[in-house]
């Protein structure tokens, strides 16, 4: 399937989902749908580095929080223009602030992408468990910085109050849901393009054997930097609207362990070698967690993820996509 047709299908599906929710759902359905789509973006972003290149990133929460705190910072600046700037400058800046969420998403993506570039440059000579520990440390370092940064609320956190309604969409959550659909389309399209391109081939050689890849002429370090930037930027973009979704952000929520765990578990359960895997994993796990939240308790969420992950690692280490491919291959091989 060609990319324009793929994007068209994504748009049609996204529009259908929105209209369906709007007709038959309530605000909660939009809240739950937003969370699931946010995980689709996070899992897809993680998979670009972790699945395609084989570099396990435990710092997803850090990149997500960079996006979230970029928005908190700019929101707070917008709220304090008169205190921070002279009357003249503040007057000019009032034309820019408050910055619309789509622009905040781009800024969050750029910031997280830049951190991804720096992280990649510093850590990509590390491999395996050493790289994973370095990314985990990055999230811890960023959280410590935010905890001590009073302008964005420090450990107390910060309130970000979105307008109750927006034109066209009505309730603000519907607007955020549509933005998350667009982000999902962007993330899935990028992942699919990478997978089918020269870049995807290079990523696969890195995952399989980095030394052999270099011997074949693959510029592994450059490709890994591209992967960290794209992956980090998408995670940051997923995090940027988060303060407007939740209304109150503190380091505990933005750097929550569940982001790191889910963004790894979802592609692992769905399958890491294809863009479809994180999508399936995120929809499956994200929906299960939303159901568990309203029927059992949100405390059960990580337990569900953990149990499913253990099950899949034992039964289907290549995830649902791998299981499906194996089944198809066996079926074809039958005389």
């Amino acid at each position, binding site marked *: 399937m060609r990319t324009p047709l793929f994007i068209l299908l994504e748009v049609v599906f996204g529009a259908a989902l929105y209209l369906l929710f709007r007709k038959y759902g309530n605000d909660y359905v939009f809240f739950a749908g937003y969370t699931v789509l946010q995980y689709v973006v996070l899992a897809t972003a993680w998979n670009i580095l972790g699945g395609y290149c084989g570099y396990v990133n435990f710092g997803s929460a850090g990149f997500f929080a960079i996006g979230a705190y970029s928005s908190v910072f700019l929101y707070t600046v917008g709220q304090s223009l008169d205190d921070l700037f002279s009357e003249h400058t503040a007057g000019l800046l009032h034309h820019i602030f408050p910055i619309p969420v789509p622009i905040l998403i781009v800024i969050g993506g750029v910031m997280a992408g830049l951190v991804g570039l720096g992280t990649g440059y510093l850590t990509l000579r590390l491999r395996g468990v050493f790289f994973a520990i370095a990314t985990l440390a990055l999230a811890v370092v960023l959280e410590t910085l935010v905890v001590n940064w009073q302008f964005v609320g420090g450990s107390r956190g910060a309130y970000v109050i979105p307008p109750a309604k927006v034109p066209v969409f009505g309730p603000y959550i519907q607007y955020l849901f549509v933005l998350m659909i667009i982000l999902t389309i962007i993330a899935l399209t990028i992942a699919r393009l990478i997978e089918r391109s*020269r870049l995807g*081939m*290079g990523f*696969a*050689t890195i*995952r*399989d*054997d980095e*030394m*052999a*890849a*270099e*011997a*074949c*002429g*693959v*510029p*592994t*370090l450059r490709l890994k930097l591209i992967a960290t930037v794209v992956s980090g930027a998408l995670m940051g973009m997923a995090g940027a609207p988060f303060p407007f979704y939740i209304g109150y952000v503190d380091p505990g929520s933005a750097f929550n362990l569940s982001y790191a765990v889910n963004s790894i578990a979802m592609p692992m359960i769905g399958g890491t*070698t294809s863009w479809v895997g994180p999508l399936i994993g995120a929809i499956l796990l994200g929906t299960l967690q939303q159901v568990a939240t309203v029927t059992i308790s949100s405390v059960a969420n990580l337990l569900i993820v953990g149990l499913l992950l253990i099950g899949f690692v034992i039964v289907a280490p290549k995830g649902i996509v791998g299981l499906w491919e194996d089944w198809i291959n066996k079926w074809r091989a039958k005389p």
Partner: protein
Amino acid sequence: MNAPLLQVDQLSKRFGGFVALDTVDLAVAEGERVGLIGPNGSGKSTLVNCICGTLHNEAGSVTFAGEKLDGMIAHERTHRGLARSFQLPRPFMSMSVAENIRVPLVYTVNARHGAQHLSHAELDDRCHELLALVALEGKARNSPRDLTQVEMRKLELARAMAADPKLLIADEAMAGLSHSEVEDIVALLIRLNERGITIIMIEHIMRAVMKFSQRLAVLVSGRKIADGKPDDVIKDDEVVGAYLGT
């Protein structure tokens, strides 16, 4: 006399207190077939790794086609025409046999050609041609996991050849193969050499080395102890004492 294609000057490499290479000199002329022998741990693979950029030498220099390669990373050396096969085959397991061949075509040959890179059809043709050269055309769609040991070695050589190299370093390409399979690989390497590719063959199987090499160099404990015509080198007392035995 023309400048050699590969010139290794006073190359040294240490791993902590262990001297893996000690001021090694080696010159290889264009089109030459050179055998490199030595006991296990003599520094043969370390020398290959230093030439190919997998390891960085502490002293000395590597010059290839008139250009100093010191400090250059491995893939840049591949782009300049240096290719290698590995002692233990290292195919890309998630790809098919044909896709393995495609990687150097896309990342090295196309990178050299710049804007005028090979089309998909041309890439397919080159893949098919290279697989035919090593008699693997029937296994193009197979996973490397389906290959026998000798086929895996052939894939390794075909993948190195796909980078369109000037110099190919075959690192123990015959290890673990039967008598007839060794003959098969030697014949293949000679065919590649006849296509104009300079080859350094690292090997322990002496009948293969003698059949293949126009010149023979011997490494022992990181030092080159002999370099010359194969018939002369194998009679050298130091070589006999250190490696070949009586």
